[in-house]
């Protein structure tokens, strides 16, 4: 007797749960983003069709992608042990010339989104983002707002009395970082604890003392404004800037996340 079918069933269940979760994110982001972004050209919908919920994430890649080496990829490859070769993916199926740049659509976004928008998402080059995985969920962080990727070497020191999403303090070579259990912070309803599941990397948010624990570094992609379904102002997830359907990942709103963390931290007397 083999337990292979059981394992497969379990893996399928996890896939389904994750797929559902990402779908919820996509639906939420799409639903609230529709109104403020009415001035945006509808080209995104045509070029980046939303995949069916039952389809695995891996099958939802855009039809035409060009892969090339990038300095940041080389750097990450040299400095980190990663589970898969890093590649920079440039979404080329949206002709830049067709994107109608309208400043008003950016102004309608929340201040956090506006801060992200100040990265000039509408530039023809787009913004390089690092994709990493937390409990199966793919997250993207813009490289200009990436403080660093740290390989977990020393243990994280837990501090008593802290919120469940705080793993503790970690002493890096140059900085002391407060490590966030990304799964607990981003999807508490899943009751996944990275302290149990394990983690391999810390994603430092900008130059802040905060870092997200993650399990896998996937690759880097270049995202342009219209490849992202921006979340609306009324979103209940301040950490979410939007979703990238082509990559089936959530784009992290770094300023929004930092604000959320700062709001939840109290000054010590």
């Amino acid at each position, binding site marked *: 007797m083999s337990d292979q079918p059981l394992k497969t069933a379990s893996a399928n269940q996890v896939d389904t749960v994750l797929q559902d979760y990402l779908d919820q994110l996509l639906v939420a982001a799409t639903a609230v983003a529709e109104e403020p972004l009415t001035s945006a050209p509808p080209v995104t919908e045509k070029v980046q069709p939303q995949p069916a919920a039952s389809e695995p994430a891996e099958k939802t890649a855009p039809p035409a992608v060009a892969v090339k080496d990038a300095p940041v990829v080389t750097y990450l490859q040299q400095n980190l042990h990663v589970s898969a070769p890093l590649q920079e993916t440039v979404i080329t199926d949206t002709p830049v010339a067709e994107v109608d740049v309208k400043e008003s659509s950016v102004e309608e976004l929340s201040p956090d989104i506006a801060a992200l928008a100040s990265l000039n998402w509408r530039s023809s080059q787009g913004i390089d983002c690092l994709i990493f995985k937390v409990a199966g969920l793919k997250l993207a962080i813009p490289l200009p707002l990436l403080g660093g990727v740290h390989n977990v070497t020393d243990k994280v*020191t837990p501090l008593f009395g802290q919120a469940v999403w705080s793993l503790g*303090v970690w002493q890096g070579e140059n900085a002391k970082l*407060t490590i966030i259990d990304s799964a607990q912070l981003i999807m508490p309803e899943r009751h996944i604890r990275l302290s149990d599941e394990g983690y391999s990397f810390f994603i430092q948010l900008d130059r802040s003392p905060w870092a997200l624990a993650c399990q896998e570094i996937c690759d880097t992609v270049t995202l342009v404004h219209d490849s992202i379904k921006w979340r609306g102002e009324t979103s209940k997830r301040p950490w979410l800037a939007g979703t990238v359907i082509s990559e089936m990942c959530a784009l992290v709103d770094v300023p929004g996340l930092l604000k959320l963390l700062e709001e939840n931290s109290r000054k010590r007397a």
Partner: protein
Amino acid sequence: MSAIAGNKAAEDPVLQWVTFRLENETYGINVMQVQEVLRYSEIAPVPGAPPYVLGIINLRGNVVTVIDTRLRFGLPTAETTDQTRIVIIEAENQVVGILVDAVAEVVYLRQSEIETTPNVGNEESAKFIQGVCHKNDELLILVDLEKLMTDEEWTELQGL
């Protein structure tokens, strides 16, 4: 030269901390507040005492209340071992004992070496943490003993 060095020392004093272990982490308390360190001895429970009080011990004729440090810090309970110690401290003009897994050493830290960390605690115990310091390849959590108890609790202890 010596005057400059004196000014520097005044600006950045060296403090001594007694370190102890609890649940595989190292904590530090100001040496000035530590009176002595005792081997574990029988702790007599006090009926009606608050849960954070383990009981009392007889210290050369004086009754000293022993606090359950693990419970106070929100850590799971553990069996006593040969390394278990009762650290007699003075805080808020009271002498109390705190039960710890082991006492490690006395370390010297410059004030400037002590760093604060973001406090994301919902629990009351989060405020006990005075700061952290990287020493001997590990992170030392410095505890503010004055905040170990609220004013009401210190008063309650006095009345035991």
